[in-house]
């Protein structure tokens, strides 16, 4: 075998490094999973040993990473088309689709079994359902079929705080469902704002985003409707066991800002957006990142203050 033939073979089969496999786990998405799952665990009324808590968060993160790898395996064809995803390990040629599938399946099974052993069956069952929901319901079914893909698929990203809560308590309760609902309702305005200034990429890949199928006017209206519903839910959560005065104050400010942003998006037309390079939409998207981080940060802080007689109601 000559060096030339060897080089051809490696570029085709892709001799992947450790970092390529790590990239397959969608580490940026994983940070959100880790953070929200941790908040779910901390906000739970039952304390867990730090080692068990660490293991629970780790296995939830690994499960989230596994679903990311399986998503990349399934979506490899559209990842090759979209500019944003073209450098992922499969389109880049460093990892084959079969390798990604095997890696994802093995990690998913590993994460679910280990979470069951480290914590309880309820948490493990929720993690298994989350992986199933993200890979089968969202990636395989909804994503390429309906413009409501983001709405229903968002549920997959909303499960981690519920799993964290279940890891500590072994149950599902109103508070954990509210944390789920917070991410679930936040996802559509967050992604539709992104889709408003990334439309061409989704169009090219044939993903039926609302902007593509129903136009931007409808998308802008949908962003406003979901933001109004989200605001009511986010502030209302403040009056439950996971909330408190600090959370309510944070939620009131953030939701006022978010509503103003959604109203601005709704009132604009395409000419105005084109004129300033989608500045309002981009600002709303950036705010949405802080929005979720600060809401969950406030929930965590309320829980952290409870031992000092300060957090909660």
């Amino acid at each position, binding site marked *: *075998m000559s060096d030339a033939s060897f080089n051809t073979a*490696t570029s085709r089969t892709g*001799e*992947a*490094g*450790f*970092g390529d*496999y*790590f990239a397959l786990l969608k580490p940026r998405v994983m940070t959100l999973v880790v953070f929200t799952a941790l908040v779910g665990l901390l906000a739970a009324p039952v304390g867990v*040993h730090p*080692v*068990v808590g*660490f*293991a629970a968060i*780790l296995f939830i993160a690994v499960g989230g990473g596994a679903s990311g790898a399986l998503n990349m395996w399934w979506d490899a064809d559209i990842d090759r088309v979209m500019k944003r995803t073209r450098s992922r390990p499969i389109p880049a040629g460093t990892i084959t689709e079969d390798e990604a599938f095997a890696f994802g399946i093995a990690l998913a099974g590993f994460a679910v079994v280990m979470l069951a*052993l*480290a914590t309880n069956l309820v948490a493990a069952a929720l993690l298994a359902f989350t992986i199933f929901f993200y890979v089968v319901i969202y990636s395989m079914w909804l994503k390429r079929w309906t413009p409501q893909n983001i709405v229903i698929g968002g549920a997959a990203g909303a499960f981690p705080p519920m799993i964290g809560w279940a890891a500590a308590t072994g149950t599902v309760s109103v508070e954990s469902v509210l944390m789920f609902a917070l991410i679930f309702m936040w996802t559509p305005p967050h992604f539709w704002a992104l889709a408003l200034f990334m439309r061409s990429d989704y169009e090219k890949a044939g993903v039926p985003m609302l902007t593509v199928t129903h136009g931007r006017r409808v998308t802008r209206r949908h962003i406003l409707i979901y933001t109004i519903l989200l605001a009511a839910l986010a502030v209302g959560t403040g009056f439950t066991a996971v909330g408190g005065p600090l959370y309510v104050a944070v939620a009131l400010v953030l939701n006022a800002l978010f509503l103003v942003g959604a109203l601005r998006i709704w009132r604009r037309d395409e000419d105005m957006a084109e004129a300033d390079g989608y500045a309002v939409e981009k600002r709303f998207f950036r705010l949405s990142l802080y929005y979720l981080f600060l809401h969950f940060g406030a929930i965590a802080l309320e829980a952290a203050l409870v031992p000092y007689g300060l957090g909660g109601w």
Partner: protein
Amino acid sequence: MSFREEHDLHKRRFGRNLGLGLVLAAFVALVFGLTVVKVTTDDFTMQPSSEARD
């Protein structure tokens, strides 16, 4: 046929093996830690031995 020691392929393969080794070592440590925590908690009970059951 021989490859030079510094070939990029070897570097990536070494990195992958080293990474996997460290992950496995961390996993062993975590399982050990979990075991210690679980057997030292108050609600931990041993299964009765077969002699005791009889």
